Every structure is written in C-alpha cells, then in structure tokens.
C-alpha cells in the first residue's frame, strides 16, 4: 500500500466504499494529489475561465470532450449584450467567463465634463431599470460634499420614489425571469404592473424612464396633486397581484424543477466575491444597507430583511418576491408620514430662486445667473456613498476639486460586481440551467458597462 493520503482503504482493512480489495493492478486507490496535472486541476476546481476573449478553443488537446461555446452577446436570455464563454463537457458546464463591455460608452469620463445638474441625466441612464436609485446615489454623494441639510419632505419623496422604483424593478425581473423559464404569461403580467408605476413616474417627473427627478438639493418638482390616491391604487393592486403570482409560480412543479437546487452559492463565496443585494441575501447573509447602515430616513421605518437559506435560484426568486411586499409596506408607512414643506433645499447656492424674486432682488438675480451659467460649485473633497438599489450595493465615489464639475465620478455598479458570482453558480450545472441562473443574477448591462 502506498502512503497516499487519499487512500480509501483504511489501515485496519475496513473497505468503506466497497471497492475491490484486490485487482490485477493492486489496490484501487486514488493517486497522489501532486500527480494531478495543472490542466486537470483547473478543470476540477476552477470556476472562472481565464482565456482571451477572442479564443475559440481550449489550449492543449481537445480529445477529452471539452469545448468552448459562446452564449451571447445576442442571446435572448442574457438581458442585453452579455456574452458568456462556457467550457462544457457534454451537457455539464465546467468553467465560464462573463465577457462584458459591449455597451461601454465611457459614462464616467463623460461625467467629468457635466455639471452637477447635468450629471443626474448621465447616471440615470446606467441602471435603466432603477434610474431613480442612480440619481439618488449621485445626489447623496454630491450633497455629502456640499454639507447641506435637506428639507424633510424632499427626503421622504426620495424614499417614496426609490421604493416604488424597487417594486417596478423587481416586478420587471419577475417578468423577464418568467420569460426565460418559459412562462410567457408572467412576462406580460410583469410588464403590465411595471407600467402602472412608470405612469406614476411620468405624472411626477414627466418621463417614464431616465427621469432626472432627484436632483442635487432635493427633487425636481413636488408630487402631483392626488398622488396619495395614485400610489395607494398602485400598491394595493400590486400587493393583490403578488399573491396571484405566488400562486402562479411558487408552487408550480415545472418552475420548481427548473430552479430548486440550481446555481447554488454559499454565503462564504457570496461575501468573498463581493456579491450584494438579493444574491447575497439569498445565500443567507442578512445584509441590507437600508437596515445595517441606514441612509435617508430608513432607520425610522419598520421593515424586514428577506434572507434565503440555500442560495439557489429559487431563493433568489423568493427574496425578490418578498422584497416587493416589504417595499409595499414601506410605501404605506411613507404615505402616512409624508410631511409638508419645501421639496428642495432653500440654500441659494444650490437651488435657483423663484422667478418673482429675480425682479425684486439683485442677489436672487446673481444666484440665478451663476447657477444657470456655471452650475453648483462643490467644495473640494472626496466621498463614497452607497445605497441599496434593487440589484445590490450601488455606490458613488465622487471627487471634487472645487469647480462646478466633478473631478472624478465613479459608480460601483452592483450588476458589474455580481456578474463575478456567475461562474460559481454555473459550475457543475447543466447547460440548460444556465439560462435560469443568468436570469436570477438580474444583470442590467447599462450599469455593467457604463
């Protein structure tokens, strides 16, 4: 008997695994670990494929049945222009590599040439399914450098819009996930519900998407008359319908067959890979920035953090479905507590004066002129602000040199970072499950590529 540490025959001769004790080749046992070649080791333990994007074949011999296939960038289930290189052996996915950048337009460079008023129109186009959250994080970063206090109503309006946007984004995810798994009816239902929220956004901001509603110093306009009735109607309808979707999807055997136990990620892996949002929580890590490091007035609200236990595609579905209900409960509390008052700061260096004041006050005229020719000047400094967007930790790192444009503006996109978890989830699964797993990560390519 060799001294291999991987021998399966115990010293006392107990043959636990029922292997043949004696064969013509001697004892049947595993060889030394060091005897495994590097290529075989990578195949066994590596999850991330690290070959150039232009490569079509694996190095070494291809006689062992492994091959590379490209999924995307035009695949309908990749939600945009995501390309994934998959190393497959038969129907099993071994290693994979997400290839991104097809939508890169240099928005961080563009931001360096835009004023703080124009900046929100830029960031709102990144994560186009939750534009208001992008605007919010940009404004919070700028305001942390400005050091201004916002009127209470402005903050509550921001929370209302942010939560409604979360509902719209998660409902949209239910729709696209349904489509990926063959449930076309869910897709139509999801888009129908999202449209209700978008109609309200249109009423408040004038635009369905890319609203540019949240601005540095507050919001662009006060909520429209009768907004309470609109919002109540939206959340009542969606709440009733989430129960329908629960019934339609959750217990359905075909759906469960596709998602339960598929694409499992452990909490340790999720934390190590910097995953955030529903993916991190589905793996069992109770981390929600709204709860743990509250911004706005989230510390005054009562809501639960939804946590999964297995970390599979089903958990990621369940976390998002229940988050819709939590957001609805948050919106109800906001409806009750919305204070009256100004909807943007009264600081004349940030907010332009009302039209009537310009005729009677020289200072108001100067402020008006300076704000519209030059923009808001922000004192030098640097700041990192993070909020919980529907997809996870959305961060904004802003450096100001004292001028009216950011010296550097960096967005930490949750989709960009979450894509790194994809190889872990896909490893060892079936090729057909890849569609379900990619959908469960919910990447928005506008934010990944920026």
């Amino acid at each position, binding site marked *: 008997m060799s001294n291999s540490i991987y021998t399966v025959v115990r010293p006392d001769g107990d043959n636990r695994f029922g292997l043949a004790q004696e064969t013509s080749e001697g004892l049947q046992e595993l060889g030394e670990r060091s005897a495994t070649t590097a290529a075989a080791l990578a195949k066994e333990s590596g999850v991330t494929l690290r070959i150039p*994007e232009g490569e079509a074949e694996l190095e070494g011999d291809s006689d062992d049945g492994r091959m590379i296939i490209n999924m995307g960038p035009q695949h309908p289930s990749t939600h945009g222009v995501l390309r994934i290189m998959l190393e497959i052996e038969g129907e099993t996915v071994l290693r994979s590599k997400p290839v991104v950048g097809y939508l890169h337009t240099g928005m961080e460079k563009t931001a360096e040439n835009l004023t703080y008023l124009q900046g929100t129109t830029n960031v709102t186009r990144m994560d186009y399914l939750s534009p208001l959250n992008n605007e919010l994080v940009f404004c919070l970063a700028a305001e942390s450098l400005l050091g201004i206090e916002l009127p209470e109503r402005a903050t509550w309006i921001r929370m209302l819009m942010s939560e409604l946007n979360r509902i719209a984004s998660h409902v949209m995810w239910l729709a696209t996930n349904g489509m990926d798994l063959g449930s076309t009816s869910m897709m139509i239902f999801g888009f129908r519900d999202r449209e209700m929220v978008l109609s309200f956004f249109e009423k408040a901001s004038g635009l369905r998407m890319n609203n540019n509603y949240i601005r540095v110093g507050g919001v662009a306009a006060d909520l429209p008359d009768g907004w309470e009735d609109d919002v109540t109607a939206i959340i009542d309808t969606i709440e009733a319908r989430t129960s329908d979707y629960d019934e339609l999807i959750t217990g359905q055997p075909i759906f469960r067959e596709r998602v339960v136990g598929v694409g499992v990620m452990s909490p340790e892996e999720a934390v190590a890979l910097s995953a955030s949002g529903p993916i991190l929580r589905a793996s069992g890590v109770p981390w929600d920035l709204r709860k743990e490091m509250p911004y706005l007035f989230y510390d005054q609200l009562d809501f639960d953090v939804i946590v999964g236990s297995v970390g599979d595609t089903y958990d990621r579905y369940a976390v998002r479905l229940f988050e819709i209900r939590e957001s609805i409960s948050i919106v109800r509390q906001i409806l009750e507590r919305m204070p009256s008052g100004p909807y943007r700061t009264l600081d004349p260096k940030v907010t332009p004066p009302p039209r009537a004041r310009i005729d009677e006050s020289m200072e108001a005229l100067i402020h008006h002129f300076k704000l519209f020719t030059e923009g808001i000047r922000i004192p030098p400094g640097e700041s990192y602000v993070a909020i919980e967007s529907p997809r996870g*930790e959305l961060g904004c790192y802003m450096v100001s040199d004292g001028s009216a444009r950011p010296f550097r503006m960096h967005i930490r996109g949750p989709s960009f970072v979450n894509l790194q978890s994809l190889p872990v989830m896909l490893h060892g699964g079936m090729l057909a499950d890849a569609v379900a797993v990619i959908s469960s990560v919910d990447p928005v390519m506008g934010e990944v590529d920026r």
Partner: protein
Amino acid sequence: MSEVILLKRSDYLSTVEARHQEGYIYLADLTCVDYLNDHTRAMEDGVQLERFELVVNLRSFAPPAIIRLRVQIPEGNPVAPSIFALYPGAEAMEREVYDLFGVRFENHPDLTRILLPEDWEGHPLRKDYGVGRVPVQFKEVKRNR
C-alpha cells in the same frame, strides 16, 4: 462618517491583511483617481501624494462599518499589488482599473482589458487622454476613413 486612511504603496498589502483580520471581510469598491498636474497635492499625514490614487472601500458586517484606503501609486511605475487572494471579488474591479487607468496589478490571475476591446490603445480615464476625437478602434476597421 467613514474612516479614511492615506497609505504608501508599500504599506497597502499589509494594511489590507490587517483589516481583513479585524473583520473587514467585504470589498465594497475598488477604483482609481488620476490627479494629473494637481499641484495642490504634496504631503498629507506624512504620505507623499502621487499622481494615481487607488481607492479601496472595505466593509465589516458586524459591527456595520466601512473604511476607505487611499493608496498612492507613482506615475513612473503604476503598479500595485493585487488583493485578489484576500478578496476574490477584486478581480473585475482591478481589471477595470487596469483597463481605464493603466495601473497594473501584481499577482492578478487575469489582468486583461474588461470594458474596452483587447486591442484598444490608451487608458481613457487618465486625465491626459484626449476627448473630442472619434476614437473608433474596433478590429478590422481602417483608421484612415
């Protein structure tokens, strides 16, 4: 609100390791800033400020906390140690910094461009990278059109 630490490049890896031991197990963000020709920057807290600054945000879950490391990377030799071994989530973020700023990371498993095409020239987020031209550099496209 959050703790900010200015660091020399030589102290980067040891500081990150020490913070990881303290419970800062989550890498929130890793990015870079190019302070080209910013003559107001000289010395702060005994650290010589350089052209590139690597900005690393680390989170601790219990208790909830965030710290920011600002690591100075000199212009002449823009190289930094990779923290991939401690934070596997740094892989894409370091690739992005390499792609857009040209800061190379030692011991990174796959330091290639991530957002731009593989044959792109230059690093666009550097302050001396010209804007205003038409930089279409895709493969098999003639440059002289």
